[in-house]
């Protein structure tokens, strides 16, 4: 039996559809129940839906053997897991954004508002830029508008929200997509089953 942590929402649904196609369907997932764990004894798999940012925690601590998680979460929290496959779906970009008329003054520390403290610190360290981090948990776009920060580091999907708030992407830090991760110990004991899933998943994504 392989347990899978799926991210709640659109990405989780899309990934489950792929699991179903490659032979890991689960009838319970199609029902409208309030269940938290969905199991298919027949296909040897059980699923549970968790907050996207918690997927890597469930996998790292062995509550799930494998999981689907965005690369942003892996870079931010650096969990000790195997990253076995780039699904190439759920694509977006980790960007630096600011007001349309923003001009950087390298003589003072740049005020950066973000949810992704680790990613922002690593990026600015790589370009030797002195920064001051302002950690926010949501509505990041508000920060430069209210002059709480000079720029933001956040995920950009289409850029529509930025445009509507007179903000622009200043730099693209890295592309983001969904990854299939595995708990290291689970991988040792269930190598064949997990490799089977990875191979089938990879083949299905190429279609």
């Amino acid at each position, binding site marked *: 039996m392989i347990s899978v942590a799926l991210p709640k929402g659109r990405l989780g649904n899309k990934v489950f559809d792929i699991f179903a196609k490659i032979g890991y369907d689960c009838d319970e997932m199609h029902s409208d129940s309030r269940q938290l764990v969905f199991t298919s004894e027949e296909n040897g798999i059980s699923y549970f839906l968790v907050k996207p940012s918690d997927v890597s925690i469930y996998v790292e601590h062995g509550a799930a053997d494998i999981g689907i998680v965005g690369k942003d979460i892996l870079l931010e929290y650096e969990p000790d897991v195997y990253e076995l496959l780039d699904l190439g779906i759920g694509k977006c970009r980790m960007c630096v954004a600011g007001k349309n008329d923003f001009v950087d003054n390298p003589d003072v520390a740049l005020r950066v508002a973000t949810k992704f403290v680790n990613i922002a610190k690593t990026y600015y360290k790589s370009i030797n830029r002195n920064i001051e981090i302002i950690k926010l948990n949501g509505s990041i776009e508000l920060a430069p508008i209210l002059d709480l920060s000079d720029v933001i580091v956040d995920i950009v999907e289409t850029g529509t929200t930025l445009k509507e708030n007179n903000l622009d992407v200043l730099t693209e830090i890295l592309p983001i997509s969904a990854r299939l991760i595995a708990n*290291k110990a689970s991988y040792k*004991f269930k190598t064949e089953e997990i490799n089977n899933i990875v191979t089938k998943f990879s083949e299905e994504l190429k279609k």
Partner: protein
Amino acid sequence: MSGNLSFLYNDELTVLKLRKLYEDRGFKKFRMSKFESYDFYARNKDFLVGNRIITFTDLNGKLMALKPDVTLSIVKNADNTADRQKLYYTENVYRESKDIHEFKEISQVGLEVLGDIDLFQTVEIITLAVKSLLELDENAILEISHMGYTEGLLDCLTNDTHLRAELHKLFKEKNAHDLIKLAESNSLPKSPVNTAVDVMSCKSSNDETIENALSNALNNRMQEAVKEVSAIFSLLKKTDLDKHIRIDFSVTDDPGYYNGILMHGYVHSIPRDVLSGGRYDSLMSKMGKDKTQAMGFAIYFDALDRKLHVRNKIGTDVIVVYNENSDINILADFCNKLSADGISYNAVTKIPENICNSKVYSVDGTDVKEVTL
């Protein structure tokens, strides 16, 4: 070893079993003090897991540290005149926990061989590592790799230190997709990249893994690494321990610390490795030792707490209840007899709650009788 030791927690019992295992192979117990000079760890920070150390000033004004590591102290105190020293330890170390961002006391049991490490000694250490894991759980896997293989592969890819570190990280994650992207963006040669990707995928058997690694070897360093692992595995096959071995040449670790065989041990239902170790000659050289070879492993009991910190037996076999009317001589005789028969008892004046499976006897006047609850 259980029997009358059934009052022990399983982790305590396991430590005793491990001690016997190591003593039976000629290992001597190494005792160290709780504190070391901070300066000692500061000079050898590269060999420590994490950077945080608990420090305090002693009564002479010297900055001291609660030990974050045992191996460093063992190597420091190694006898330079001995050809080979075989030592084991059961100690607590103090390290920062990534999860709770606080210091944690971690109970460790491990062994080190310092001096000449030949093939036989290497196999002995690996055998003891597997047997140690089996003391923890019968469903155990010891993963074996060789730093020479990944380092040899990286030699074919790049000499850039920063890039090597990034490639190392991707190896550890079995992240073939990002490794390919990184190689493309840095115009790294294709053949070693293909080898890296191939080595990352697990083969169906250890023999196939060895064969595949040898055919993929691109330089002498990689070849030598495979040959050493192959020789070790051939010897392990003479025992029935080989079924607990998983060879994976993509597993790597800090190249500043390890330089040869690498081991990670896993047991069922624990989500991370509980044993790690390998060959660490560079530490011996750094410490100025004449004999520059060393190998060992440690078992981390913090990960095993939930699994092992349980007792097979809770409470005593018998509860003896007495009161002010009890004949003291009858009570003493009864308790002495229980003790002589090897029966554990707890003499109380009031029946405790949660007495589990204990039999209860009452001593009332000169009358001793079993009480049914």
